[in-house]
């Protein structure tokens, strides 16, 4: 059956509109698309997006100004744009790589769309188009800011503005091409994999580390060394990073030959990947190569308690979803990194963190152990297993509701599923730090007890908030964790209570000669009292009644 060109265009328009709405829906956190997005809401979201882009641009402009001035003075303005291009590419690639995998190769509606009279090319264009738009936004914010800063400082010509816009449009193609390729590769690699979640977690962490390195690394130091060694960096750009060199030259010198070279470097790989994907899209998305089937061998089973059976079920759920693991257990990872890092790098890692986050350049060794306790307690806030524990039940809620399990058993099991990994990691991290840092008894007590109290607090508050305000209609676990406001409240409450003693010490108590151990241990005591109160509340009739209302 041949489909007329006009029809294809119309279909493509509809598909693109659907993708855009899905994207807006994702950012707005609406109730899994049950409610149509109104024009007012779209306008509101766009306005929020613009404000956010403006804020990010403003922060970037602070970094851009000295580089622009310095490189312009050194006669290497092209390097300024080449750097902006490199950063824009890196950020957009890191931020859209997993989106490419999920939205192109593993989209749930691929088969449904292929069954409709829509050419596969149109489906692919709509998907790649959305990806390109995301990359374009990121690229526009970074390179656009660089261009605006340059224009404010040195003025701008019409042709210069046009070249910058063209370069932004072209640069977004490189990130799109690489995101597509990597998404394709990951999709192929994980097809037969049994431990997909673990693979995704490791890969995500690598990219997350790279992202944090770009965002939180020693930007100023890097910039200073760049300024001092701009010739060496320029050589790198002329070599392996030639596309960015071409872009920089095209913008800085209005060099049309360089612009053509840059356009070719962006368009040709993009076109090749698009052709390759068009040719194999149907095969990629319809080939079912499931993980190898395991042979079942009957083994002796062991009866366990209801609470432990429920908690074990939740722990299996956690271990099988990379998104759930990453979003709910990030704090545990940070704690472990801190523990292992301290063991191997001594105080260096703690000095670095305290300098970066608390602006303490000369860390007093007497207060360092207590600040480590604060840091570990702060990380406890990043652990939101319990705060999504009821929401993640959504489609499976009928099992808990139709089986003879009490509210008390369900709620205690939810606490256990949070506390088993949290307490374990907290104890190991504290132990590693205690081994690495010289401490007295009181300091050791603080390093062990405060993070534990914080984990207990985060778990209890999270569960109570999720019990009372959590939704159970999320389409999947990932959305229940990521899209849930109830996960954020316990996080920020734990952050606040964790840092409060140190703030009090640095602003008031320290000046009055009160040692830091006093507010730290007082906060630990307060947290433990709150934990006990919340634990008792979860066993009360009020909590039981609330559980009975969940899902009604």
């Amino acid at each position, binding site marked *: 059956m041949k489909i007329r060109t006009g029809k294809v265009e119309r279909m493509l328009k509809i598909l693109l509109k659907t993708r855009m709405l899905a994207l807006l829906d994702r950012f707005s956190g609406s109730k899994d698309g049950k409610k149509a997005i109104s024009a007012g809401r779209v306008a509101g979201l766009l306005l929020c997006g613009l404000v956010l882009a403006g804020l990010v641009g403003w922060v970037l402009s602070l970094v851009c100004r000295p580089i622009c001035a310095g490189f312009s003075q050194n006669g290497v303005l092209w390097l300024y744009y080449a750097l902006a291009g490199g950063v824009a590419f890196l950020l957009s690639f890191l931020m859209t790589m997993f989106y490419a995998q999920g939205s192109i190769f593993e989209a749930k509606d691929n088969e449904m769309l292929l069954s409709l009279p829509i050419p596969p090319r149109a489906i692919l264009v709509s998907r790649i188009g959305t990806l390109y738009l995301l990359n374009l936004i990121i690229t526009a914010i970074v390179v656009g800011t660089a261009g605006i800063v340059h224009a404010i400082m040195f003025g701008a010509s019409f042709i210069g503005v046009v070249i910058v816009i063209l370069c932004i449009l072209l640069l977004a193609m490189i990130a799109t091409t690489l995101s597509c390729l990597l998404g394709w590769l990951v999709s192929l690699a994980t097809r037969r994999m049994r431990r997909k979640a673990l693979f995704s977690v490791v890969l995500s962490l690598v990219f997350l580390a790279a992202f944090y390195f770009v965002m939180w690394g020693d930007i100023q130091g890097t910039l200073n060394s760049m300024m001092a060694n701009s010739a060496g960096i320029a050589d790198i750009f002329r070599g392996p990073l030639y596309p960015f060199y071409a872009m920089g030259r095209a913008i800085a010198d209005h060099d049309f030959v360089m612009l053509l070279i840059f356009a070719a470097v962006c368009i040709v790989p993009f076109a090749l990947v698009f052709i390759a994907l068009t040719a194999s899209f149907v095969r990629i998305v319809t080939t079912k190569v499931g993980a190898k089937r395991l042979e079942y061998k*009957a083994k002796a089973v062991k009866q366990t308690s209801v609470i432990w059976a429920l908690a074990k*079920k939740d722990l299996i759920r956690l271990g099988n979803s990379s998104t759930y693991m990453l979003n709910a257990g990030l704090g545990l990872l940070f704690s472990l990194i801190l523990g292992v890092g301290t063991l191997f790098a001594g105080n260096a890692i703690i000095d670095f963190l305290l300098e970066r986050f608390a602006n303490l350049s000369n860390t007093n060794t007497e207060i360092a152990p207590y600040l480590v306790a604060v840091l570990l307690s702060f990380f406890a806030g990043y652990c939101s297993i319990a705060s999504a524990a009821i929401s993640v039940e959504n489609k499976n809620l*009928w099992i808990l509701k139709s089986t003879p399990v009490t509210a008390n058993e369900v709620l205690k099991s939810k606490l256990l599923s949070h506390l088993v990994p949290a307490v374990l990691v907290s104890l190991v991290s504290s132990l590693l730090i205690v081994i690495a840092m010289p401490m007295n008894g009181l300091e050791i007590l603080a390093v062990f007890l405060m993070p534990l109290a914080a984990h207990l607090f985060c778990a209890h508050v999270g569960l109570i908030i999720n019990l009372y305000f959590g939704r159970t209609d999320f389409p999947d676990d990932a959305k229940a964790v990521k899209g849930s406001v109830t996960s954020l409240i316990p996080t920020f409450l734990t952050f606040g209570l964790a840092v409060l003693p140190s703030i009090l010490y640095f602003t008031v108590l320290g000046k009055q000669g009160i040692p830091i151990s006093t507010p730290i241990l007082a906060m630990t005591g307060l947290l433990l009292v709150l934990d006990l109160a919340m634990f008792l509340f979860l066993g009360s009739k009020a909590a039981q009644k609330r559980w009975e209302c969940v899902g009604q």
Partner: protein
Amino acid sequence: MLQIIHYTKQYTPGGKKAVDDLSLHIRPGEIYGFLGHNGAGKTTTIKACCGILNFTEGEILVDGMSVKKQPLECKKIMAYIPDNPDLYEFMSGIQYLNFMGDVYKVPADIREKHIAEYAGDMGITEALADKVGSYSHGMKQKLAIVGALMHEPKLLIMDEPFVGLDPKAAFILKKFMRKFCDNGGAIFFSTHVLEVAEKLCDKIAIIRGGILLADGDIETVKGNESLEEVFLELVDDIKVDEDQDREGGKNA
């Protein structure tokens, strides 16, 4: 075994009644079919019987115990199989069955026996090591059935149990249902498959718009007509014979 007494359900106070004043009595040894169109109130009633949904008025008793007042005691002796088996996809089949065994406090030796017997009957033993997420709809349905039988319930409540089952599994399930009730159990299930209801059920109830239209022994309800004819007459006000006569008249 299951008594539904003047059961009424409103999702919103003062709103439309999803089910209005429904009374049914399912005795031990009976297979009781619950028929009605989509949205008639079948699933709402079934979920209320299992203690998943609360209700506005009336009472539901399981073996003489109130679902409202003694939910746990009721749940211990019954099992529910939903129409869409949304099981824990992240677990393997065997993990799910053991989970159900733990939740119902089934001793390990009895559990092992049941898993071997029921999973074997349903033909899913070989897939028990695989993740539930990799199962087909029919396999999930079979696993849900095996899980529901782990604690030897006295009452089985099933919502469209034959949807997604292959002919062999459907045959085995029908045979099992009969055996289960012959041994003193009771089954209350909803279905759209009128032929199954006609052949399998001892009693049926037909519901439309939340109101009970007919109930009782299958022979009494259908009389000399087929269940399909009675159902269509009651639910859709279609007089099958008259229509056919009219068609016949026209053709003549």
